[in-house]
């Protein structure tokens, strides 16, 4: 018997009862739909978060003094910045602190206070000015009282679009007050983390060194922007070695976004496995439904089977026919499920801003269809062998 004939006969059998075929497919459709949608949503979420992370941190390595009880943390000073020049990186040092300032109604609101070098937008593409300017290198080194604030801080302290040129008084620890003038406003960061921004004020690092004695002469964290073309992993290794040489073992915490991404991938893979498991369960239920409908079909078509055998169909040929039917049945269910999933994913991308890209990988589609076919093959075996084992005379006599 030719494959094309087997295929044609199976297809005809399915179209003989279209409504029943569709109903018997519901389980498989739902199962494949669930698996496909969940896997793709997982991929889309991973992509979204990684994309945001990369926008935020890009190809960067972060170094921080390691804090251990009873051990004096190492000191990141201006000299370290010069040493780091041997690496293919652009170091951006930060002094991190917090402060409070009075909002428009006079209430004190806490904010993140950051000291850094001048002309930051030239060093870090993710920093974009909305209005005004960033303080320059000379202002940063001399510690002039100028501030660049983010959009959130502007709306809290001055009202939207009304911050430029205004005075911002920062209450820092030790009761000190720093009077600054707002010279620039930066755009909110895009992506996933953009929505969680809090009030942030950026000032020259030397201003904080001068006005906060505890911070004098040290940076809290240094971001190393790896130059294009350099290998992130390699640079990270060299950074560790250099810092170990300078400060000793385990004195500096070195982190890159890569490690974070790996952890994130681990989480999403775990999540996908869980969701995939739920989908597999519904496929199992769907498979049992298919088996049931196939058994009904074998009973209904007893006489047809008897006739085919009387005319010379072998048991193997009858079995192949019913297996083909089962596989075509589940495969078309799988196809419908994938199409439905694609439609829903597309709607999600259109309506939910977090999901930026439509991802339905060929691997996911292949997996969904492969699993559907396998379900048909597995749950078709029993009905098919029932059909194959029928005795032709008894089958022909069946009413």
């Amino acid at each position, binding site marked *: 018997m030719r494959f094309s004939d087997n295929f044609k006969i199976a297809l005809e059998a399915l179209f003989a009862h279209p409504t029943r075929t569709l109903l018997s497919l519901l389980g498989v459709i739902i199962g494949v739909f669930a698996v496909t949608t969940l896997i793709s949503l997982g991929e889309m979420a991973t992509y979204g978060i990684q994309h945001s992370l990369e926008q935020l941190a890009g190809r960067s390595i972060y170094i921080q003094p390691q804090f251990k009880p009873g051990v004096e943390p190492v000191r990141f000073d201006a000299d370290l910045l010069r040493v780091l020049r041997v690496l293919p990186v652009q170091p951006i040092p930060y002094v991190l602190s917090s402060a409070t300032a009075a909002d428009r109604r006079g209430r004190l609101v806490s904010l993140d206070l950051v000291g850094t070098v001048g002309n930051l937008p030239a060093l870090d593409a993710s920093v974009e000015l909305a209005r005004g300017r960033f303080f320059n290198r000379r202002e940063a080194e001399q510690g002039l009282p100028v501030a660049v604030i983010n959009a959130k801080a502007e709306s809290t302290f001055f009202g939207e679009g009304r911050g430029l040129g205004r005075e911002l008084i920062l209450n820092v620890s030790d009761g000190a007050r720093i009077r600054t003038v707002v010279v620039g406003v930066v755009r909110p960061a895009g992506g996933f983390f953009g929505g969680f921004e809090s009030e942030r004020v950026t000032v020259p690092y030397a201003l904080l060194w001068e006005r906060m004695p505890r911070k004098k002469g040290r940076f809290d964290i240094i971001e190393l922007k790896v130059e294009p073309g350099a290998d992130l992993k390699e640079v990270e290794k060299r950074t560790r070695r250099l810092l170990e040489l300078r400060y000793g073992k385990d004195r500096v915490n070195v982190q890159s976004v890569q490690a974070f991404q790996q952890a994130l991938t681990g989480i999403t893979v775990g999540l996908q496995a869980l969701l995939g498991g739920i989908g597999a369960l519904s496929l199992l239920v769907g498979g049992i439904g298919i088996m049931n409908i196939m058994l009904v079909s074998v009973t209904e078509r007893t006489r047809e089977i008897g*006739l085919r055998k009387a*005319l010379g*169909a072998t048991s193997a040929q009858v079995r192949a026919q019913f297996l083909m039917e089962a596989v075509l049945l589940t495969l078309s269910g799988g196809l419908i499920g994938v199409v439905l999933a694609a439609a829903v994913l597309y709607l999600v991308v259109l309506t939910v801003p977090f999901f930026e890209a439509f991802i339905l990988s060929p691997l996911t589609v292949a997996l969904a269809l492969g699993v559907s076919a396998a379900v048909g093959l597995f749950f078709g075996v029993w009905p098919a062998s029932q059909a194959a084992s029928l005795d032709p005379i008894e089958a022909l006599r069946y009413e």
Partner: protein
Amino acid sequence: MKPVVEMQEVKKVYRSGSRRRQVEVRALDGVSLLITEGEFVSIMGPSGSGKSTLLHVMGLLDRPTSGRYLLAGEDVTTLEDEDAARMRNRRIGFVFQAFFLMPRYSALRNVELPLVYRGLTEAERRRRASRALAEVGLADRMDHLPSELSGGQKQRVAIARALVQEPALLLADEPTGNLDSESGREILALFERLHEAGKTLVVVTHEREIAERGRRILHMRDGRLVNDEVLG
């Protein structure tokens, strides 16, 4: 003349009922018989005498409980199921009382059906099936569904389906049983033509008039051949 059917002491025993009160039915109780190429044989006998059972054994649809059966010189007594299926497909043409056509298939596709299991291409099947339909006078009904055909036409489609196999043996179990007398005569005329063309035919029937179309009548009673009547 070459022997087509050679049976020696063929028995078929059905056991049914519960284990304690088993009932044995000797549907065939020692049938020995020789049919040679080109013969037109009728089988007659009262209901339950074993006519259909004999035809099923002859057509490899059923296996004898004991005895020996040679089909066209080949011992087919203990054939594996798959080999029996292949023999049915190539050596036997069966015509049933109730036609047994696929209701959703056109006449042409019904006639093609046995050839599907030989793995022939669709073009080749079409060619042979339309020739067989022309042979039974239905060249103009190829695309009709069984529901669009009269009883006699349905049975002629079934005969074409048997002929397309080019069988060594054409078997018919009460082929006119479901037909009015006019259609019945058509079928009988067709059988006579096939006989004249040299086919080997075995036809089970209740009616003497029909049986007399053949050249030989086997009479059965209680699973035995009681009379082998050769007509002049």
